[in-house]
């Protein structure tokens, strides 16, 4: 049983370090040009289409995908490096992040060829934005309770119902959503849902922004009224979406974005305490850095498993569980230590402003993309308890 929980010490190959230098140089140029401010953490508030296209032009979107679809056929470890450098710099990744991480791989696996040829190169060029249509007003963690209906009609399906908490739906060009095509069966309550590709910004779809406690409006309610989706936009097996969901999770749950969301407050604390910290600050920073380092080692290890063609669902769930709890607590631990920072610290105001935002962000981190409770259920199943 413990054999399943090995996190081998994967080291990034030399190609990754060369790439890292290129990414850092690019981000430094963009910061210098005023494209974004690395000290301003509310990255998700800003949609920067030209940044997205520049990242695409660098070949850093869809970089693991086949060349014929615009990809670079590079490794997951190389993608990992690009992702973590963007996160740490607070780069405005909102427009392309979901498509690159999640939607593209789903299309690669399940979309018909002509759709792949049409859409994947545009993701790689950073031209289009994706949203994920999973939750509904009465189904969140209980994904298979989804009710939004896809009713068969001539040449396609008519969609009626509401998706909710849909990040980026207000700017998205496409959504990958699950809709109900059949009722669940007695034997399998997960039966009856189908995955669809939905073209947004069309009549029959209404996107209503929802205010968040951070002051942002980055998630939405999406209402479908007799919205038509053609047959060739069905992704995978009709009624069989549940079989397709699990492999997505390992990609979604183990990346550097699962522990670096509030990282900026740690950098700023180190800046505030200066080169000669008192014992309490040094001890606090040392622990946080040790915890951060350990999570990154685990996360890189999972990237190595993905590269080796494994499906480390339990390991990925452990990374997301530990990582999101950590990034949620981080602003509070930094606040504990910031209480002792000298009044004269030059970045005191920056640190306080960042803490204000990070503390408001923190509650969502253990909810989005699979709650802590769902993750621990998956880990428990992996341990043979369920």
């Amino acid at each position, binding site marked *: *049983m413990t054999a399943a929980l090995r996190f081998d010490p994967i080291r990034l190959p030399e190609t990754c370090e060369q790439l890292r230098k290129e990414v850092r140089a690019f981000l430094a140029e963009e910061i210098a040009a005023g494209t974004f401010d690395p000290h301003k953490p509310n990255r998700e508030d800003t949609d920067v289409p030209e940044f997205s296209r520049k990242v695409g032009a660098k070949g850093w979107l869809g970089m693991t995908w086949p060349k014929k679809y615009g990809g670079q056929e590079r490794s997951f470890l190389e993608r990992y490096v690009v992702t973590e450098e963007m996160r740490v710099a607070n780069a405005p990744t909102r427009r392309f992040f979901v498509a690159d991480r999640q939607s593209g791989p789903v299309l690669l696996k399940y979309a018909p060829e002509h759709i792949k040829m049409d859409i994947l190169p545009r993701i790689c060029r950073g031209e289009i934005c994706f949203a994920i249509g999973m939750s509904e007003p009465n189904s969140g963690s209980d994904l298979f309770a989804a009710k939004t209906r896809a009713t068969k009609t001539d040449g396609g399906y008519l969609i009626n119902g509401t998706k909710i908490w849909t990040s980026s739906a207000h700017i998205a060009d496409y959504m990958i959503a699950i809709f109900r095509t059949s009722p669940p069966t007695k034997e399998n309550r997960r039966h009856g849902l189908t995955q669809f590709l939905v073209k947004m910004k069309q009549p029959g779809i209404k996107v209503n922004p929802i205010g968040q406690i951070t002051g942002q409006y980055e998630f939405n309610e999406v209402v479908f009224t007799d919205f038509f989706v053609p047959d060739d936009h069905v992704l995978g097996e009709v009624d069989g979406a549940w079989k397709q969901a699990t492999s997505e999770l390992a990609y979604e749950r183990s990346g550097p974005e699962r522990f670096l969301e509030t990282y900026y407050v740690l950098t700023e604390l180190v800046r505030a305490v200066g080169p000669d910290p008192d*014992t309490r600050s040094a*001890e*606090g*920073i040392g*622990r946080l850095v040790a915890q951060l380092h*350990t999570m990154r080692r685990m996360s890189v290890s999972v990237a190595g498993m993905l590269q080796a063609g494994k499906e480390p669902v339990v390991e990925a769930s452990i990374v997301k569980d530990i990582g999101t709890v950590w990034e949620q607590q981080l602003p509070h631990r930094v606040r504990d230590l910031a209480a002792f920072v000298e009044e004269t610290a030059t970045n005191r105001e920056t640190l306080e402003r960042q803490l204000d935002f990070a503390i408001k962000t923190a509650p969502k981190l253990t909810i989005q993309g699979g709650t802590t409770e769902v993750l621990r259920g998956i880990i428990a199943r*992996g341990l043979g308890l369920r």
Partner: protein
Amino acid sequence: MAKTGNAVAESDNIVVETAEKIFADLADPQTINNDKTNSWQAPLWQALSEAGLPLSWVPDELGGSGASLADGFALLNAAGRFAVAIPLAETMLAGWLLAQAKMTSPEGEMTVMPASPKDRITVDADGALSGRCRGVPFAKAARHFAVLAHGPDGVSIALVDASKGRIESGLNVGYDHSDTVTLDKVQPLAIEAAPDGVDQTRLMLMGGVARSLQIAGALESMLDISVRYSNERVAFEKKISKFQAVQHNLARLAGESAAALAAATSAADAIANAKTFDDEVYLEAASAKIRCAEAAEKGGAIAHQVHGAIGFTIEHILHRYSLRALAWRDDFGSESHWAVELGKLVASRGADELWPLVASR
């Protein structure tokens, strides 16, 4: 432990395979827990010695078996899974230290000192050693000490006859010997200058990573026996493994166990492949000790919670792992010590050099 067969099948390394077979044959946890006279210790030590395991890190020409650093670290992880009260890690570390100065290791049990970053042994102009070291693991069982000493000419490494030291006997929270050793102008059996880069910090980090691997191993076993117990124990008319509260606790224990193993094996890999002991290796080694110590506390508490009262009894094997994991936190610098040192290192490099340090490999 009934599941040791699994561990044997998992291992991919002849040193570890040999050790696991010996542990499984001679150190069954329930059997040794029932043995009030510790009559299992001598045959176990003899078997390990015959297999050359205590001197794994000593080259053939210096009296050892010449295993790689990586194999030795894997051996310590396996030893942690059995949590046996014998000076295997200590003898390995002592042999490693002596080998740094090309000194031959004697036969028999050894330990290494200082075992705390706060203690210091000095060497005077006549080559005599003086100083007091607390918390020296298994000093009472050792026939020789490998000593790192400071003198006017820098750092030396010495081999000392254990009977020349004054030993105040003590026990750590895991009931293993953790003694205070005083050397008062003791002439060593041999003494050599330490090579560049081998100093007390390096010894503490090496010892800390050894303890990290042992803690990670103990946590693997705690997870294993806790899962098994939860699938056997019935309460409120069902197995307690079916209660969500218990499942979530065990999921957290799995996370702590995984984090400890990841931190420890990563640090071991970093040291085994390091050309120099740079900031990146320091980050790896210090982080392993800090994170494994935290996992020992959090993970051990969950293992006990799952077991309820039975796990609190001296008859049950759980404490063999849980208390030892807690005790190992104190050796070669506690997590508090390393957190302060790591925090100082990070602060001195500056805020903009933190991420390059973390993302260095």
